[in-house]
């Protein structure tokens, strides 16, 4: 990827992005869908868009996914 491309990707915003509050409110449902092999991103496209853009929420998603799969 070109250096301009990296910057362009960083600045790109997705209008479907629901933000942290909405994403975290359904994170447990989203994670269970992922664990069950369901179409989590299809059911919650705004959450999927948010997790791609928000590092802290994606960390929470990864942590919760790891927690439930390590049980």
């Amino acid at each position, binding site marked *: 990827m070109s250096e301009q491309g990296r*910057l362009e990707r960083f600045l790109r915003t997705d209008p479907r992005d629901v933000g942290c509050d909405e994403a975290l409110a359904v994170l447990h*449902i989203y994670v269970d869908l992922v664990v069950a092999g369901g179409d989590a991103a299809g059911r919650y496209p705004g959450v999927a868009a948010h997790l791609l853009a928000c590092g802290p929420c994606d*960390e929470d998603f990864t*942590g919760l996914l790891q927690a*439930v799969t390590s049980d």
Partner: protein
Amino acid sequence: MPVEDLDEESSAWLRRLGARSGERHAAERELHARLVRIALAEVRRRSASTPVTGPELDDVAHQAADDAMLAILAKLDGFRGESRFITWAYRFVILEVSGKLGRHYWRNPPVALDAGQWERLPGRLGIDPARQAEAAGILAEVRRVVEEELTSHQRRVFVAIVVDGIPLDALAAQLGLRRNAIYKVIFDARRKIRRALVANGYLDEPALERR
């Protein structure tokens, strides 16, 4: 959702946590032990991205488990069965870990608020040091837009998060704001910067924002 419609494990948790003292206390001890285990694993997983270390990291985990336990018991009636009970419960402890690591960041911060380390921006954006000359013009324009076109609040948040690399939860704790409020500021700043870069010929029209 009625308890009988839940999966077997979730139904058992709710029944035991709502039982009379002996069975309820055993369930609470079991759940708390699981929260502690998850919290310890989570702080270790995040240890590379936080200045919190050693015994303080374990303290964060135990505090997170304790606070998550209180929140779970207080909100038990709010569990609607949209996920497994344990996933719902673990969400509390994961979010507690995030929030507490954000607050503990300021006990020994590697970067001060408002440091403004613009020379580090290329690295933060993943730009190869050997190719920074290629990006110098556009990065200078980013800085100009940040300094001249963002509001003072947007500029402070953008510089802290993007330029200085302060974790978003740490900044939220320092400014007394929710994570979502900081994210929204960054989201709007990214859009504003991008529009300026497009308007001034540095970037092409973004596909997603045409909709």
